[in-house]
């Protein structure tokens, strides 16, 4: 029977969707900051979607980790899912995933304390969103059960390509002297 794998499979499913939504959110953020969306109305819609996608991603990350607590085989414990490199299972890459998760929390929360920490600090902090994505990607490739599956590799490739494109577009735009919008 597969009932004992219920939480494990659910965790993997939430993790997969969290990764996809994180990638989409980062890509949209980079597209906004690189002035790829010209019209103000479009920018406002994209900003709203970016914010919503980030909030849902944080929920999915929490579900991804929280469901592991209920897995009778792994039994990671609270420390195993919250403190990097504590969990014995593929320690390095699960640790990287935990760091990515906390980074996502900090970057996501920083939006709501932007006035308190200052726009400049927030903007600097927000640049780590791409680092979060890179760490999450490493986590999936190193610790993901489905990492070698063709569908997962296709998904990761499809997510990473627009991020690299939007990141390059922004960097090249900034070098050409155009002041990019903050993400």
């Amino acid at each position, binding site marked *: *029977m597969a009932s004992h794998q219920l939480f494990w499979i*659910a965790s993997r499913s939430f993790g997969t969707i969290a990764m996809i*939504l994180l990638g989409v959110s980062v890509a949209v953020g980079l597209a906004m900051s690189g002035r790829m969306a010209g019209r103000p109305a479009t920018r406002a819609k994209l900003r*709203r*979607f970016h914010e*919503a996608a980030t909030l849902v991603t944080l929920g999915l990350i929490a579900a991804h980790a929280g469901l592991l607590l209920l897995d009778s085989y792994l039994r990671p414990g609270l420390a195993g899912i919250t403190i990097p490199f504590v969990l014995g299972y593929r320690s390095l890459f699960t640790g990287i995933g935990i760091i990515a998760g906390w980074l996502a929390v900090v970057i996501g929360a920083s939006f709501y304390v932007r006035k308190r920490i200052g726009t400049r600090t927030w903007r600097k902090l927000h640049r780590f969103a791409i680092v979060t994505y890179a760490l999450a990607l490493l986590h999936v490739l190193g610790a993901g059960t489905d990492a070698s599956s063709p569908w997962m590799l296709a998904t990761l490739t499809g997510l990473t390509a627009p991020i690299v494109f939007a990141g390059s577009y922004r960097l090249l735009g900034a070098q050409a002297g155009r002041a990019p919008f903050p993400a």
Partner: protein
Amino acid sequence: MEPKPDARTPQPRRRRPSLYRTVLSVAIAAIVAASIPFAALYGQALQPRPAAAITAVSGSGGTQTRIVTTASGRVVTQTVPATGAGSASAGTATPIVTRTSVATPDN
């Protein structure tokens, strides 16, 4: 001449009704999307696995310990003579515990 707005009058808060709607829509989409890999992976886990065997030569007596995953997913161990053609006896070695073997109490 227009009257100046009173500075003490509280300004209406910026309304963000559509953010709630967007968050909810994205959350619903994410849960529905998560159900797709979940259904596929869970369905895969429900499928009976093909029988597989790992055989290792034991330390003494010229016997081999064979750990067999049966088609039902049950793990049994068998001790057979090293020549491989002898009769099997079950349950003499500790079975290797894997994610797919820990579930049922009869393992």
